[in-house]
């Protein structure tokens, strides 16, 4: 025993969430993404890796940023891409999600990238279509490519993830980005703290691996990374906060709060920012802000994911 070193192989046909990955998987994706990032800096930003592959962007929620990022990633790898913006109202017309997905099968896609407001839809699709499914955000469940690009960005700056203190502030309960980040950073050995009003905390948040802090000050204390989440506009059916004004007063990230953090703290935000609400403008645009790098790394991570799910083709059926 011990002599035979097992050769690592990426074995995932679908990317549904960071929860499915081992530590080795995550590092492999990040390393692959780093190599693809180089392509993006070339004068001719295109490689033939996925020539002849068909990729469908199947978006049930408006999302220019994530869709564009996946589309750029696919094009840089020479894949044929199609965008299908569906609305959940087609369900009311009697066509179910499964019907629509089965219609897409006629195009014989290799990869379907899906964004949907209901948690679990990517998982549901894997049971009905033959293509690889990549989750581009499902409900309040996961947004794995966002989590991975955040890991990539932090790793580039800090050289590691293990041992870092990461504060995530805001509406954790309704944020798939927070979910993927909590799971991803925790898997790689960071200490994740979350803070925000109790109305923004999912039940048993600690079960995901995060530490629930009583205040934002406590969460950012000695933090290496501070991530603020976008606050959704107030919900009619569920009074979560009295006003954005009060939220920013008590939970907004500003300079004086960041005095509690490490001097080299990184400032992150999955975007788009409500300036002056979850983050003051001087923080968003100031030292330590890596918000624009997040966007660049997003393309690299998504190229890596497209490449890797196609690399696992041996396990494909039919």
């Amino acid at each position: 025993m011990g002599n035979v070193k097992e050769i690592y192989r990426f074995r995932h046909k679908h990317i549904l969430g960071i929860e499915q990955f081992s530590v080795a998987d995550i590092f492999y994706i990040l390393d692959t993404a780093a190599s693809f990032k180089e392509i993006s800096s070339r004068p001719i930003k295109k490689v033939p890796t996925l020539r002849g592959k068909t990729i469908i962007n199947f978006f049930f929620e408006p999302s220019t940023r994530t869709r564009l990022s996946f589309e750029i990633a696919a094009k840089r790898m020479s894949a044929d891409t199609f965008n299908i913006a569906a609305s959940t109202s087609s369900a009311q017309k009697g066509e179910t999600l499964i019907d629509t997905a089965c219609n897409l099968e006629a195009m014989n896609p290799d990869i379907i990238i899906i964004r949907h407001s209901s948690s679990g839809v990517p998982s549901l699709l894997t049971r009905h279509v033959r293509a690889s499914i990549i989750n581009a955000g499902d409900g309040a469940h996961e947004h794995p490519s966002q989590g991975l690009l955040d890991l990539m960005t932090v790793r580039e700056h800090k050289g590691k993830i293990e041992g870092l203190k990461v504060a995530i502030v805001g509406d954790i309960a309704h944020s798939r980005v927070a979910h993927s980040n909590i799971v991803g950073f925790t898997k790689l050995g960071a200490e994740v703290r979350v803070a925000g009003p109790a109305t923004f905390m999912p039940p048993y948040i600690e079960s995901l691996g995060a530490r629930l802090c009583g205040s934002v000050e406590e969460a950012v204390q000695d933090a290496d990374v501070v991530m603020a989440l976008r606050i959704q506009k107030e919900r009619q059916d569920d009074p979560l906060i009295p006003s954005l004004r009060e939220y920013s007063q008590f939970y907004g990230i500003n300079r004086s709060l960041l005095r509690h953090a490490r001097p080299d703290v990184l400032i992150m935000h999955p975007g788009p920012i409500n300036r002056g609400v979850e983050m003051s403008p001087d923080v968003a645009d100031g030292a330590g802000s890596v918000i624009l790098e997040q966007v660049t790394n997003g393309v690299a991570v998504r190229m890596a994911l497209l490449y890797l799910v196609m690399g696992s083709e041996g396990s494909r059926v039919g």
Partner: protein
Amino acid sequence: MTIVTILQNGRLIDPAGGVDVAGDLWLQDGVIVPAREHLPENNLVFDLQGKWIVPGLIDMHVHLRDPGEEYKETVATGTRAAAAGGFTAVACMPNTHPVNDNAAVTRFILEKARGASARVYPVGAISKGSSGEGLAEYGELKEAGAVAVTDDGLPVFDSQLMRRAMEYAGSHELLVISHSEEIALSRSGSMNEGVVSTRLGLRGIPVAAESIMVYRELALAELTGQRVHIAHVSTAAATDLIRQAKARGVQVTAETTPHYFTLTEEAVAEYDTNAKMNPPLRTEADRQAIREGLRDGTFDAIATDHAPHSVLEKELEFDQAANGIIGLETSLPLSLNLVRDGVIDVMRLVELMSTAPARILKVQGGTLAVGSVADITVIDPDREFTFTRESILSKGKNSPFLDWKLRGKAVLTIMGGRITHNEME
């Protein structure tokens, strides 16, 4: 001369008479008759060595979907599934289209039930159209054959209406069945609020959504001095409330279902809509508390909340999919697990599945006493089978128990002397 059905050499289990003996049971002209010394000329004899002879099982919480959603289930298919599951009678919930809130719908259901494979006891609506406003006509419902009232599927959110329903139903000797749910807490949720909902990113239904309403129903039963039946209890909290209320003399009865004492929220796994129902599957602690409630008498009955749906309602996004699972064909083997696990004894099992439902609904059956209706279930406690999709008689195939290996089966079901299901080898 009429045929005499003779069930020989079985184990007769009759909670009503406290009987658990080896013996024979004779049935003639739709009733249980005394055994005679000599075999009559026209006889149909079953040798039931190793099998149990129990009063016909009664499921007091079933959705037959008829009228209005016959593509999901009909009186005919639902009662066929019931008979196969060992049931000789079912109480059917009023959330049909139209809602069973009047004598005409009740009579329509009973008309369809003539010649069906099980007795059907229609349950009327509490409010007109189950809208939560105004009382349905209980006097006429009762005359037409309704045995209880409920707005099942929905809670009665107006406490004054629920109070009046209990009072007025009392005047007509109708049972009020409560679907206990505080909808303001539950409406945005699609599974139990807890560790699993957080992992899956699904909005949760907290325990308090059930316990708040159960407490209200108990308080109203106490206020009015009327009886109330709490349907499909899923939580430890509600079980405790019912136990305490019984101790202080509140006229409350309660049921739970096989899925609440068998499964937990973990069954949702990867967004399996066959594990989605209302109230939702809860935690292991709740499951244990439900089992304790079955053991100590807090629960009077096991019901299924049989809720057939087609793939149109179930093969959907988890949060969009309909609530409910079928249960008629799995209830008995899952309940037998309680006996095998030492939670309850056989006598108590039959009490929960037959004698008590008959008593609560004030309907015939639930006993093997001579002169009683010949509603009989013969159980082979050791018969093993795999619950496959193809084997299901219900139109609904929405079960979290698909492909489970189950043990214990009704091998002979007799309703009013007529054989409605026969799997004797």
